């Protein structure tokens, strides 16, 4: 069977690879031609080869299951890549760098003068009612004034082709290891394509991450001891923690490996005794970081870590409290932040959003629940949302009640029909909805991953791409069509 793109359905959709009428978009031309030659059966064979490689390489993610506890699942990767032209990517990259700069200026402002608030750009309550605002971070000066060193912003494309930022993940964004491993697997599966087209490489991320982390070290002139702090092997992203530690040549530590002494320095317990730690890439949420400062029932954290950080004896990436800008209500102000702090217009648009905290917007949302998406401001993983068009009457009634009781906790957005990418379903190729999570590193320089992690909703028509909810992934190719 030959793949036939003229019958591939694109009506009412924006497909990343196939243009209206079945023609290939420029960045996808070589890929689609190649897939057509290969045919459905052979593509399915390659998919199996990819799945075997994933199992053998042990690329897994952990899902928590009520009956069986935590289980390691093979990482779901669909072998048909998602392509973006280099030219378009350059614009997106600029937009992301701009955004990360504004977000970091905003967070630093929140924990110091709060000019943005004092000048009336944002109501004060929004900050003080944000779940991720940490009063104990007030006045702290992290190195370079940067709080969100690693930011994962989710991008989506609507059916008219517009790219929007859907959310910014500033706490412990994950997924970058899968981006890197997806490329390894796809190179094994489609070596021919890498020879014949110009697909930009992704694999220098770990060294960029390491350089950025090392630049934060408080002990200048000494070789910095950088470590990755993980909650442990049962965390859903443990694979990634271990992967990044390995790629950077760092120790992967758990809270119990670390201790803070009376001079407020951090040490790890090594085979040769205690040894000083300079920079911690922490993959534990604020709440669990330091039982002295936050949740005292946390067994994952390190007592005294906040003291050490405030004194500047250790750098934490991301800084505690950075999540204040992760709140989806704060998100609605990002275009204003860009204007305010940088004096520029936002290059990338926000999804138009309704602030339920504002009475007139709330009443509009309540009247139009059936066509909106309602999201909790502090949610992640696609949980706790109302998808208006597919919701039942009683679900809407439930949400209406919750919205009225606690308007600050929700934002609402129009339903965006995410763009699609051809995806293998059995041995047929069908469109499936995708998003894209690039990662932005902010240090002495700001850099963006080449592309990012494309997540795909594997169920037909579904817009939920989260891997914990049956989503898959794709390799993302930034293709230089002019080379």
């Amino acid at each position, binding site marked *: 069977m030959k793949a036939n793109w003229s019958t591939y359905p694109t009506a009412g959709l924006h497909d990343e690879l196939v243009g209206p009428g079945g023609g290939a978009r420029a960045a996808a031309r070589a890929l689609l031609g190649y897939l057509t030659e290969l045919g459905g059966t052979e593509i399915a064979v390659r998919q199996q080869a990819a799945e075997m490689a994933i*199992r*053998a*390489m*042990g690329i897994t993610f952990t899902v928590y299951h009520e009956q069986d506890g935590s289980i390691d699942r093979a990482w779901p990767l669909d072998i048909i890549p998602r392509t973006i032209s280099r030219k378009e990517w350059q614009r997106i990259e600029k937009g992301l760098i701009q955004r990360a700069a504004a977000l970091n200026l905003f967070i630093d402002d929140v924990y110091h003068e709060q000019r943005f608030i004092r000048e009336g750009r944002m109501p004060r309550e929004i900050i003080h009612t944000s779940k991720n605002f940490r009063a104990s971070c007030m006045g702290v000066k992290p190195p370079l004034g940067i709080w969100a060193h690693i930011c994962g912003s989710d991008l989506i494309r609507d059916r008219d082709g517009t790219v929007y930022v859907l959310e910014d993940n500033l706490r412990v964004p994950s997924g970058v290891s899968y981006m890197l491993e997806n490329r390894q697997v796809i190179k094994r599966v489609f070596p021919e394509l890498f020879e014949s087209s110009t697909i930009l490489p992704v694999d220098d991320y770990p060294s960029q991450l390491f350089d950025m982390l090392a630049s934060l070290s408080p002990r200048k002139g000494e070789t910095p001891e950088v470590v990755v702090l993980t909650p442990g*092997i049962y965390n859903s992203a443990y*694979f990634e923690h*271990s*992967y990044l*530690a*390995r790629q950077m040549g*760092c*120790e*992967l*530590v*758990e809270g*119990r*490996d670390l*201790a803070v*002494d*009376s*001079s407020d*320095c951090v*040490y*790890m*317990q*090594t*085979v*040769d*005794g*205690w040894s*000083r730690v300079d920079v911690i890439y922490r993959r534990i949420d604020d709440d669990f970081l330091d039982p002295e400062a936050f949740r005292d029932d946390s067994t994952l954290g390190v*007592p005294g870590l906040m003291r050490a950080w405030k004194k500047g004896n250790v750098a934490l990436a991301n800084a505690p409290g950075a999540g204040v800008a992760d709140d989806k209500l704060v998100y609605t102000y990002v275009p204003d932040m860009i204007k305010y702090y940088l004096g520029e217009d936002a290059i990338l648009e926000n999804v138009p959003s309704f602030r339920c905290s504002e009475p007139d917007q709330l009443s509009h949302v309540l009247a139009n629940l059936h066509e909106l998406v309602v999201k909790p401001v502090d949610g992640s993983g696609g949980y706790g949302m109302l998808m208006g068009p597919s919701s039942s009457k009683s679900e809407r009634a439930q949400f209406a009640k919750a919205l009225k009781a606690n308007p600050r906790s929700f934002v609402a957005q129009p339903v965006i029909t995410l763009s699609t990418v051809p995806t293998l379903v059995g041995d047929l190729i069908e469109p499936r909805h995708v998003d894209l999570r690039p990662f932005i590193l902010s240090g002495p320089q700001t850099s963006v991953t080449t592309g990012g992690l494309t997540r795909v909703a594997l169920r037909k028509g579904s817009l939920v791409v989260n891997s914990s909810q049956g989503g898959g992934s794709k390799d993302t190719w930034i293709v230089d069509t002019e080379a």
Partner: protein
Amino acid sequence: MLARVVENVYWLSRYMERAENTARIINVNAHLLLDLPKGIAPGWLPLVDISGNRAEFDAKSHKLEERDVVQFLAADPENPGSLYSSLQMARENARTLREILPTEAWEMLNEFHSEFMRELSTGLAKRARFRFLNDVVGNLQKISGVLDGTMSRNASHTFLILGRNLERADMTSRIVDVRSAQLLPAETPELRPFETVQWMSVLKSLSAYQMYRGAVRSRVRRADVLEFLLRNRQFPRACMFCLDQVEHELKSLQRGEPVVDRLDAVRRFMARAPLEALDQAGLHAFIDRLQLHINELHNGIARIFFPKPQISGVQQLSQQGQTQSQTRLAF
């Protein structure tokens, strides 16, 4: 290198070694039984004694000795020493060591582990068993080979070798102990050929037969076998050889001295034993003490190198440099 990580490497290595030895002794026992006359064959229970888990075994109901023992030793998740449990634990430890282990080794172990779990039920059927267990030994040796061939000689490799050799010394001493207790008395000339067969099986369960023949060029005799398996310094599964390896590795660690001192004492204890003159009871008592010694070596290593519970109260760690292990804090 983190204290927690070297502990996990150490256990990974012990569990791999334990799994390999368990697979080995089941196969060798099956062969031995084929060579012995029905009435005097020691059966399968000695293997349970070697594993040291007799109480757990006896707590279960039994029908067919062979099937039940093999099931218990190879496939029982409730037996902490079973092949199943050892591989499970080896993989769990390896899972926490992804950033330390060479990727190929992890991939091999991971693949072998899932293959083992998949084939376990069919692999233990009597016809398939020899090959299945032989493959277990082969796979584990392959993984050890990759580790030896690709790991830098740093602290994690040191603990790999420590775990392997302490487990080996322990297992060799158990096999010698249990087997010699169950061997037939060679009092009558008719039984003498069978004594030889049994001592040969002891050697074979440690893959020692060929090396033994190379080193000892006479009939297989109890005294020579004991000497070879306990005190040979060239055969890698002999207790003394394993202890030499442990010493060598400990000397590469900054804080290994106290354990090296203890190790010297253990070797002097071994060298003094009049093996040839020991009767069965004497041998058993000797091996009992040897095992206590090996266990103490483990405790010594654990005390110095493995993680301590978290600090209580405020401590000064900053002077804790590379040379100050003697001023270590009490945690």
